[in-house]
């Protein structure tokens, strides 16, 4: 009994240590967002603010450029995720279930497109967007991000579909379902966890992307990652604004994860056949 108790205690202590290790930077960010600049650089560093202030939150949220950047990021990340998942899920199904000549070669080609360094694509993509009139538009950035996220969705989602026993689909076909009905009624519901998890990763990727956003946006479509980088000025870094911006900027992703939590848990456990 005592050995079991000791084991449990060690497990709990390791879990707490891990939790602190993971959460401490976020706690630091949160507490720093209420500090005055003087406290931010105190030596030795202090965790708690000597004086709590909300003035930088107020200043930040009153900035039209920040709120519009948030909106732009929501538009770009939302559409990137929705479109990537819609097209990617169908592509993944084809790679998982259809037999066609050179299937593996096609699949490798999809994956190979991910191996190119994104930096190398910056100028060609910039020129393409300029020629097509999509430079400095939401659509241009959405298309760019889809081109990066689609192979990832296909690759991830294919493995979720393969895990679904084909017998279930065959049973549905025997019951009179068409191919699209099988996808809608059987494949998507059974792999909803995987779809949501993949979607969250795509959303986060688009939300945090900086390189293409900085080159391919202007005042009208500037995203949050670019706006936040503007707090790093020529003369100094406005940490007192960056910390609240970090908190506010991470809220949408945090809410998304909380909202879809049950699907994510399902995504990690599903795949078994009853």
């Amino acid at each position, binding site marked *: 009994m005592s050995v079991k108790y000791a084991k449990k205690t060690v497990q709990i202590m390791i879990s707490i240590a891990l939790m602190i290790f993971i959460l401490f930077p976020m706690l630091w960010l949160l507490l720093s967002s209420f500090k*005055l*600049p*003087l406290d931010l*650089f*105190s*030596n030795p560093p202090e965790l708690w603010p000597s004086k709590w202030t909300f003035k930088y939150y107020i200043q930040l949220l009153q900035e039209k*450029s920040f709120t519009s950047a948030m909106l732009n990021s929501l*538009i770009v990340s939302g*559409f990137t995720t*929705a*479109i990537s998942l*819609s097209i990617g899920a169908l592509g993944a199904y084809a790679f998982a279930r259809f037999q066609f000549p050179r299937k593996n070669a096609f699949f490798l080609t999809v994956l190979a497109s991910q191996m190119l360094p994104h930096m190398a694509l*910056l*100028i060609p993509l*910039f*020129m393409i967007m*300029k020629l097509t*009139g*999509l430079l400095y*538009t*939401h*659509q*241009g950035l959405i298309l760019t991000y889809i081109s990066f996220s689609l192979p990832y969705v296909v690759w991830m989602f294919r493995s979720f579909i393969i895990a679904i026993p084909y017998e279930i689909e065959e049973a549905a076909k025997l019951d009179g379902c068409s191919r699209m009905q099988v996808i*809608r*009624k059987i494949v*998507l*519901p059974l792999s909803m966890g995987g779809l949501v998890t993949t979607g969250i990763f795509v959303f986060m990727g688009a939300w945090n992307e900086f390189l293409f956003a*900085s*080159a391919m946006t*202007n*005042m*009208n479509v500037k995203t949050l990652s*670019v706006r936040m*980088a*503007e707090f*790093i*000025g*020529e*003369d*100094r*870094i406005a940490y007192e604004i960056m910390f609240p911006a970090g908190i506010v900027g991470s809220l949408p992703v945090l809410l998304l994860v909380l909202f879809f939590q049950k699907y994510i848990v399902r995504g990690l456990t599903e795949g078994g056949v009853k």
Partner: protein
Amino acid sequence: MEKKHVKWMKMGVIAALLVSMLAACGTSADKGGQAAEGTGKDNNENKEITVLYLDEPFWKQQNEEFTAATGIKVKYETVPFMQLHDKVFVSFMANSSEYDVVHVRDDWATEFASKGFLEPLDSYITDDMKTRLNPQTMEAMSYQGKQYAIPRYVWLWQFYYNKTLIKDPPKTWDELITVAKEIKDDKVSPYAETWGGIVSYSSFIVHLRSNGGEFWDYENNRPTFNSPEGVAALQFMADMNLKHNIMSPLSKEFTSSGAMTEVLTQGAIAMNMNTPQTLPMANDEDKSKVVGQMDVALIPGGKLKTASYGETGGLAIPAASKNKEWAMEYIKFVTNADQQKKMSLANGKIPSDVEVVKDADLLAKYPHYALLPEQMQYPFGLFRHEDATKITDELSRNILAAVLGKVTPEQALQDAETKILAMIGQK
């Protein structure tokens, strides 16, 4: 199950509709822009230029004043400072004509001009400009004898010291060591420089200039830092750290003058060379523990009375711009004496106009300006080269190794010179 499908289909339809709406918005916005551009050439009231710089209130206000004075509208695009170079570079590489005025500093002007991205401005330069603007700043904006940008400010290092710890600021680097050793406060590092990452070359260049040396032979495109003056300069830097033990241990971590200022305002550094933001930040009660304690002096010297380091910020016109005349009107406006004074009052940037630096209102607001006319008579410009970043990165790595005692100064400079000569295709 059926309800879920309907919900998904509805979401899909809504998404498709929103995409279409967005597409429509984008298209109409583009067409609007083209229409304005098209009519702008025929109608003076619709003249418009696009300017790219930082999201700071003063620059926007300046644009409004320009429009009020000339009728030329300014479409102002902003970008994070750290992305400014790359954003312009991508645009240049794509041969885009979207920007009419871009900001450049010394090394960018050289890099862009060498690739043919910038319009030579010699034909636009007036005698008034030549007499008003500091010759070192004009030189900083030129390449192979041609002027490619007009300077509007300097971000110059001066010597800042804590007057509660130091009575008389050192006039020479040898005096600095004596003064530093007299500071007995355990919580204060006597002196600091920015040696971290790849920026140590900037401190080295000041010591080198003080010794009477120079960094580069521009005529023959060869490094000249590996000279007796250079070795002595690097030996002095290493001695400050290893022999005299007067350096802040954070020096090897500082990758920018801003990072050093943040430690200085905590009262942990007694002396340093730093940018014009130092005194205003040190006297800001929200940011500083040394309010009213810092003062400014000429940077200590050696063979030269003093020397410094600082970038010149200027405005250039891309070669692909379709509105060069209007762009030049803008540049003339924002670099005139009145606008330079307003700029300096608003954000503390040092005017490139030699007379404006002495302006009474500026001196009242910024006491550290009093020493600027003398400091600016001595060398301060950045190193300019098509491959400036690669060259200074290589040198900085070697300098850091020397000041930390990993290699001798002679070896560090010899290694750097060899690699840099190979880099630029010389022997």
